[in-house]
Structure formats: C-alpha cells, structure tokens
C-alpha cells in the first residue's frame, strides 16, 4: 500500500496547494449530499469514490501504467472504445473546482469559460493527480476556447488533437470517420499496442454496457416522484468519466435495480415540480445548480448535457460488422449522430432531444444552464427558448461559473421560477 503523500510526491503534486484544494471538498460535499434524506444504499459506493477522489482510483491508474497508457480527455466526443481497445484507461479530466480558476487566469483570459480556466489551472498548479498521471491528453476541436487551450496544454503535457466538423453533413461525417481512424492508428503506434477486431469489439461491448446501465438508471427517473434525486444522479454520471468501467457498470446496475424496486414499492407522489436541466457540462465538483434547484423545492429529473443523456443515450452498433473498419465506422457514427453539441451549426437535433425528454420525463420546466462565457451554449439558448415557448414549456436561462458569489441571486431566480410553474 502506497500512502497518498508518497504517491503525490511521485506525481509531482504541489502538496501544500493540494491540501488547500482538498480542505474545501468535504464541506461542499456535506452541504450538497449529506444534509438530505437518503434511502438508496447503492449510492454509498459512489459517495465513497468521491470521499476518496484523489486516493484509491489514482493508485489503480498508476498501477495500470504497467499494462497500458492512461489517457485524459475533456469531451464525450473522444471515443472511449478506442482507448480501451489499446489497453488504455480513459479519464475524463474534471475541471469543476473554483480553486483552479485563479491559476488558469494567470495564463488565459478571465472572460473564458471556467471549465477551460480550471482545466489549465489544474495542470499548471500541479494539484490534480489525474492530470499528473496521464500519459497523453486527447483534445478535440469543438469550441474556440478549447481549440486554443490545447496549444497551451501542449507545453505542459503531450497532446493529441482530434479535428471536428462544424456541420453534420456528408463531408462532416467523413471527416470524423477519418479522425476516428487516425486516432486508432496513432494510439497503436504511440503505445505499441495493436488494436484488433476482437479487442475493439470487446471494448465496444464494455462501453455499451456502461451506457445501458446509465440508461437503465435514468429510465427510473421518469417516475413521479423520481426515486433518485437529480444531484445524486448527476454525481453517478460524473463518476463514470474516470472510474473503472466494469466495476462502475456493476454498481450503476445495482443502483438502478434498487431504484426500480423503490418505484414498485408504491411511494407517494410528493407534488414537487419536475425540471429538465440542459446546457454546458457539469463536472465534479460542480453541483451548484442542482443543489439550488433541489433545495428550492423541485426535482431535477433529467439532464440534457454532456454529463447527462448525451453521454450514454445510444450504443455503438455491432450488427453486421465483420471488420475492424466496420467497427470504427460504427463508433464514429454513434458519436457524431447522437451527441448534439452546440458547437455544431445547425443543431436541430438538440431541440428535438429536449422536447422528447420533456415529454418522456414529464417535465414542468426547463432550466437552461450555461457556464459563463460559454458562447455556443449561451447563443443557442435563444433557439431553445423559442422552441420551448412554441411548446408551452416554461424555461429560464442561467449563466454561472464555479464560484459561490452568485448563490443569492441564483436562489432568488430559481425559487421564483419554481414558484410560478
């Protein structure tokens, strides 16, 4: 057993700054998770993962480096299947803590989204063991802020950038298929791991199983009342970005089963309003909006964002695939066709997704959440607002960063929105 301090030293962590970062987390976690009623036993695993967020899992990843690479990413377009097939572990690098923002602001402009500032700050301040453990970072050309951030990251960590189309046209699909193939070739060469049809198929099945488990969990939230609070569901999804895939899938399935049983046990409708949250991603430990909504008397029942349905809503097809090339094409199609990110123009698919989710989850209103200075999502809010209006779904827009300075304001607006649903 390596003790954590020794492990942190080996990763080059700035120990004092890291202590400050970790000092704030327990209070926040208590406030958001432990101060509410909780009857789901299956959540204790996920709570314990967060409680030891920079411990056991980091150790596992260090041990994994003897077998294959640890690869970091910031976006759900980066196909996990290919990394797994190359004996790698994919870690979705969290950049949800306000602590890292001032470090990031030493390098990049203040008027940039907090996720990018925190990401750069986390690496630059050497206070995130996940950033320290990765052998490679895979970036993707989605929004302008990230595109330019990769250039800055490349001075601190090895970077590989996937190009993205801006339009889901024939040409766009082709570009992405090529990019997925290129990633596959690059990883094979870089880490001397050959990716075969079988290893790819096995990886696809693992990721499909993870997605199916999350789908199963989300399915239970369609019930009134929802068996699991939105903030807990968000936490579960967030952990999926860096936990061991097989163990995680098992735990999510167990929790989903418990939620299914809870629904059958005939518990009474609580009359709380049901909210769909949509917009920019919410990464650990950014639980702010869910916390405010759910302590203001409503339930978040579904998230249409990258830390919600977009992460798992459809599986990679393995039907009629007889070659590695077929599988790679199926992978690229799943990602490009099913993730409706605001970096695309047009992005009608997202409008349809939101309307369908509102119907399926019987939502009373939409809270559109954009990170500050997240241009694509802030601008797209206008289209979604129109669509929501045409369909008589009340919607409010929130723009917020990771700090707690606007909590009073947020609470006023969110309470008023809920009071008037």
């Amino acid at each position: 057993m390596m003790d954590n301090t020794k492990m942190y030293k080996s990763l080059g962590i700035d120990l004092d700054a890291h202590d400050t970062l970790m000092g704030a987390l327990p209070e926040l976690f208590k406030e958001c998770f432990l101060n509410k009623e909780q009857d789901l036993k299956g959540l204790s695993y996920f709570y314990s993962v967060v409680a030891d967020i920079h411990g056991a899992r980091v150790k596992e990843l260090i041990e994994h480096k003897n077998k294959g690479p640890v690869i970091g990413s910031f976006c759900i377009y980066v196909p996990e299947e290919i990394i797994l097939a190359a004996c790698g572990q994919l870690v979705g690098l969290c950049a949800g803590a306000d602590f890292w923002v001032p470090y990031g602001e030493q390098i990049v402009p203040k008027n940039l989204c907090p996720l990018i500032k925190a990401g750069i700050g986390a690496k630059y301040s050497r206070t995130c063991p996940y950033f320290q453990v990765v052998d490679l970072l895979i970036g993707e050309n989605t929004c302008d802020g990230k595109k330019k951030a990769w250039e800055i990251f490349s001075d601190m960590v090895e970077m590989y950038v996937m190009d993205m189309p801006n339009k889901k046209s024939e040409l766009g699909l082709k570009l992405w298929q090529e990019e997925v193939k290129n990633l596959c070739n690059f990883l094979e060469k870089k880490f001397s791991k050959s990716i075969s049809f079988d290893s790819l198929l096995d990886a696809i099945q693992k990721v499909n199983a993870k997605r199916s488990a999350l789908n199963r969990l989300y399915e239970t939230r369609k019930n009134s009342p929802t068996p699991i609070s939105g903030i807990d569901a968000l936490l579960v999804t967030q952990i999926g970005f860096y936990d061991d895939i097989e163990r995680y899938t098992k735990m999510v399935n167990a929790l989903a089963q418990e939620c299914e049983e809870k629904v059958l046990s005939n518990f009474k409708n609580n009359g709380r309003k049901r909210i769909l949250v949509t917009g920019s991603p919410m990464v650990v430990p950014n639980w702010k909006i869910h916390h405010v909504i759910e302590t203001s008397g409503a339930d978040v029942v579904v998230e249409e964002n990258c830390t919600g349905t977009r992460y798992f809503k459809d599986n990679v097809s393995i039907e009629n695939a007889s070659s590695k090339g077929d599988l790679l094409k199926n992978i690229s199609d799943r990602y490009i066709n099913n993730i409706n990110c605001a970096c695309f123009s047009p992005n009608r698919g997202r409008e349809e997704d939101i309307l369908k989710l509102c119907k399926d989850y019987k939502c009373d209103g939409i809270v559109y959440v954009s990170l500050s200075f997240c241009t694509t999502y802030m601008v797209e809010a206008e289209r979604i607002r129109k669509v929501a209006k045409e369909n008589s779904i009340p919607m409010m827009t929130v723009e917020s960063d990771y700090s707690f300075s606007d909590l009073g304001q947020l609470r006023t607006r969110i309470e008023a929105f809920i009071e008037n649903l």
Partner: protein
Amino acid sequence: MKILGLDIGSRSIKWILYEASSSCLLEKGILDSTPHNLERIEEIIPPFDKIGLTGYGRHNLNNVLRAESPKIVSEITCHAKGARFIEPNCHHLLDIGGQDTKFIILDASGKIIDFKLNDRCSAGTGRYLENMAKILDLGIQDFINIAIRSEKPSNINSMCTVFAESEIISLIHSREKIEDISAGIMKSLIFRTKALIGTNKIDEKILLLGGLSELENIEILFERFDLKVKKNELSRYTGALGAALTLTN
C-alpha cells in the same frame, strides 16, 4: 387577521401590515438594511398574527425573528402579487432595487409569464446610481433634477461600475457639464434596462418599482430615452405587500 409582509432588501427593509378580513393596508414602514436594524427588527415591526418574508435576507432571519414558521417567498413572486394589488391593469413591472434589476411580465390574470434579472454585474442598479451621484457630489434627488436639464447627455460605456466611475472622473476632468454627465449616467442605466427587457413588445407604461420609484421626475428621464414608465405611491412596497398577500387566499 393581521398579516405582516417583510421585504428584507439589500439596501432597505420594507414592511406592510395588512388586514386580511377587510383587505386593508394598516401600516407601512421602511428603514435601512444595517446590521443594527436587522438585530432589532422585532422591536421595530408592528405586532402581527402571521408573517411572510421576502427579499435577499428572507432565509436568514430565523435567529432574529421568533415568529411561528414565517412563509418565505422569492421577491419576484411577491412583486407580481403586490403590483397586481396596487395596479391591476399593469402587466409589465420594472423593479430597480439596491443591487439588482428585475423585469417581470404578467398575463391578464396576474400570473408571471416571464421574468429577467441582471446577472454578473450590478451596473445599472440603484446602488450604481447612488455611487455615481456620490462621485458628482450630489444627493440622489438633486442628481435627477440636474440630469433633466441636460441637452447633450454624455456617453458612458463601461460594463463595470468601477470603470464607469473612472469614466465619469475623466469626464469631470475634461470639463463636461455636470448635467450632461448626470444624464449620461441615467442613459447608461436605462440602456442596460432595455437590454434586459430585450425584444419584448410593450404597449403600455411599465410600472416602476423599487427605490428609484420614489424619485421625483425619474419618469421624465426614462421617457427621454424611450422607456415609458409610471409610478404608484406604493411602488416601493410591492415586495412587502406581496409577501403579506401570499398568506391570503
């Protein structure tokens, strides 16, 4: 039954005592939001049977107020209810308060259809105006009276209150007329308000709420920059009144 509505705002505390059986307003009061006043709030407010709380301090008075479980409601809902009571035919409300500006749209029945708040920045709120008047060494009412005289309002473009202060100081140094600077400050506030209102079509006078509504001639300045507003003598109390009304059926 006597119901007290208490609106604990960022700059001032307002209350209304309302008699539910006769739908009458019995008493109203206002004082500054200072730590001292908050401490002795129970001694200041009149006796009541029930109490409704709103405003920024609505969640934090439990240690001071020993009332039986007060009803806590957001100020947006309260303003809508209070405004409906004093001006039943007004469907557009503009509350320019101490640290935020709210625009609220009601339907014919008084239900909120939509509302907007300034976020990220306090430029364009009542506090902004107070600070700017202070730089010009003017009381807030004098500031309005002087601004009305301007024929050529200055341009003040800064997104930030402190930078706007620097801009105003530069204007003072470059000998711009004090009335033009004052009108320029009002213009920047009203333009921000218009950005908040956005593309909503309004074919009536907007009911002005909040501290600004107590200033004489303020509506003339709004009109000058193409925003038609009207006031009511109870404009400043709609939050408190609404808090009381949430306890009636």
